[in-house]
């Protein structure tokens, strides 16, 4: 029987690793290398255009002189722009609330359908979201069109007077919101459906044993479990809705009397069409700091809750 001493091998010193090999062995180095392409993409497609837009917004109309925050000051003095701020906020907040409520309701309906039927309904309800919005908005425009609206044609059959969908300011605003909700609600639906499916059934069973009503289950089980998804979905949708361009552009072009303009459509009109690119850049950047602050708080809340759950 061999004793341990005879089997012991003399200790051999490992050859010194080259600095390149050491660098490659470090986990953080590999991580940086692997993310470099993504960093390059973000830098080239996000940071650079954003920085350029900020720079542009600080130039005069001819782009020959730096005027600091002059364009923002001029915009805030403009009655039309103050109206655009109000309309953008009204449009985004109303549309996001409507999308969230409709999406939540649809998700609940779908969640309680049997699996086979659910797939069919889920597919159909997602259709508005997968059609390019410029095309679907064109379809809506044909339905709202001032002179030959098909909706009005149907209303007239039932002796209901025609509605000036795009000609009267409030109807025009409502029309724009309707189209945005129609397009965006399926996104909420699919996100909420995924969240609903992840709520453990045991929680509902426990609540039922405690004698909870349907409303109490929703209030004390479903909503707390979906809080993070709701926050992230609302935040994402708020940002996208504030930046919406195509619906207003196709449906109303900002009219009548600028009463349906939102930031993006007004920025395009001022910047590209009227040839005042710096002021257009200032319009488009106006909501950036406000949305950034909202995003910071929402994401901080999400992170905190996630830590608590872990």
């Amino acid at each position, binding site marked *: 029987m061999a004793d341990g001493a005879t089997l012991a091998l003399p200790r051999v010193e490992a050859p010194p690793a080259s600095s390149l090999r050491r660098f490659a062995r470090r986990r953080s180095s590999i991580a940086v290398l692997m993310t470099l392409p993504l960093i390059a993409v973000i830098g080239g497609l996000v940071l650079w255009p954003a920085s350029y837009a900020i720079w542009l917004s600080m130039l005069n109309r001819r782009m020959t002189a730096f005027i600091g925050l002059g364009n923002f000051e001029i915009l805030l003095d403009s009655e*039309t722009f103050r109206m655009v701020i109000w309309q953008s906020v009204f449009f985004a907040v109303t549309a996001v609330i409507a999308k969230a409520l409709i999406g939540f309701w649809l998700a609940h309906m779908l969640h309680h359908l049997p699996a086979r039927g659910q797939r069919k309904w889920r597919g159909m309800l997602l259709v508005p979201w997968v059609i390019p919005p410029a095309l679907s908005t064109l379809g809506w425009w044909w339905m709202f069109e001032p002179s030959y609206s098909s909706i009005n044609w149907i209303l007239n059959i039932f002796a209901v007077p025609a509605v000036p969908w795009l000609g009267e300011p409030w109807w025009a605003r409502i029309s724009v919101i309707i189209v945005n909700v129609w397009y965006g609600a399926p996104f909420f639906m699919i996100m909420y459906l995924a969240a609903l499916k992840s709520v453990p059934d045991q929680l509902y069973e426990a609540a039922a044993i405690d004698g909870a009503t349907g409303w109490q289950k929703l209030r004390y089980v479903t909503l707390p479990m979906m809080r993070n998804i709701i926050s992230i979905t609302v935040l994402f949708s708020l940002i996208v809705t504030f930046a919406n361009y195509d619906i207003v552009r196709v449906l109303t*072009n900002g009219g009548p009397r600028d009463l349906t303009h939102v930031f993006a459509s007004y920025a395009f*009109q001022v910047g590209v*069409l*009227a*040839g005042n690119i710096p002021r257009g850049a200032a319009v488009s950047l106006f909501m950036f700091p406000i949305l950034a602050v909202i995003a910071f708080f929402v994401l901080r809340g999400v992170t905190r809750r996630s830590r608590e759950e872990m």
Partner: protein
Amino acid sequence: MAKEFGRRGAMRAGAGVLAAGVLGAPMVHAQGSGGNLRFAFWDHWVPGSNDALRQLGSRWAERNRVNLTLDFINTTGNQLQLTAAAQAQSRSGHDGISLGPWDVGAYADVLEPVDDVINRLIQKYGPINPVAEFLAKRGGAWRGVPATSGTQNKPPLCRADLLQQHAGLDVKAMWPARQEKGPNADQWNWDTFLRAAEACHKAGVPFGLPMGQFTDAVDWVGGLFASYGARVTDERGNPTIRGNQELRQVVDYAVRLSRFLPNDVWAWDDASNNRALISGRSALVFNPPSAWAVAKRDAPQVAENCWTIPMPAGPRGRFLAYLPWTTGVWAFGRNKSAAKAFLEFISERESAEFTTNFSGGYDIPPFLSMADFKVWETEGPPVGTIYNYPLKPHHDAQYSIAFSPAPPELASQMYIQALNTKVIARISQGGESMDSALNWLEREINNMRRGG
């Protein structure tokens, strides 16, 4: 047995694909020693009209041994305007590009002066349209060549039968297809127009006059303002709104007129008036002959009753809305001399007539001496329907563009933001007082002037 697909085979196939790609590009001529030239032109509404420029380009390129490529970019979704903005920013792209009315001013710093071309053309064909000159000249230099293709007038396009029946106006007799005025032509003013609008409104065929923010609306209202001598700024851009009686008079007129228009005109776009005419719902629109041309195809009974006449006159005269295209040569272009030579060629009388013929009379050449092309006499039915489409000496009219004589940097903002139709809408639709609406107008203009 299948042939092996080796390296050489792949090379050959690749070369074939490359050759097919090159041959498939929209190059009108490709055997030149005069270099390469690439133009972006406006994609014409009228089907087949781009072929005029293609054929002219092919002829010129062959003669000058230039590899000429023409791209036709449409304005749906403002694609052409976006292309121009991107190319001006990046200082690269086409050698020359079609520019909308105010874009020449916006990009003047990056456009090559073309005075040499214009001066030679003026020597041959006489004076150029003053509005085209106002828009294409910056700092005393021509920064683009006013184009024929796409340039349009917007005179009244009438349903002669409906106006006769409901308003008692025989527009064919008033403005016959001859170089002369007919009976009562001198009575064709905005007051007569208002009475006719009221009569047609009562008869259920209201005038289809857009009052929104698209060019058709801004242009005809611009002509109306000009005929009352109503200017919102002076040549330096200072607002001339306070105490401006002409302005108050014309706004008051427009508010009264708007009562006899369809109640949704505030949301009309540039196609709404065409549809109103073609569907037979309207007795008059302000439009180039494109609406009539579509009616000829889709509603012949409407088309055969259409008749284009000059604008109504106001206290300061008769002003015809004019919407020109200008072709600019980028200062950063690589083949500027060839680009200028090509623009000179397509501006010559024969080329302009060729272009206008292809568009069925839609295109208006920039030279006043070219208002006599045969196409405007012969097009029909009814023959002579667009005889009075180009401005002719016996019309006693002038060309106009909304918001002139303001400096172009300011005028373009007022034009794009449709300040003239909005001031009317604020009173007529929004219920504001005249003073309140005019104060708003002054504040908007002052705001637009700020920021250099």
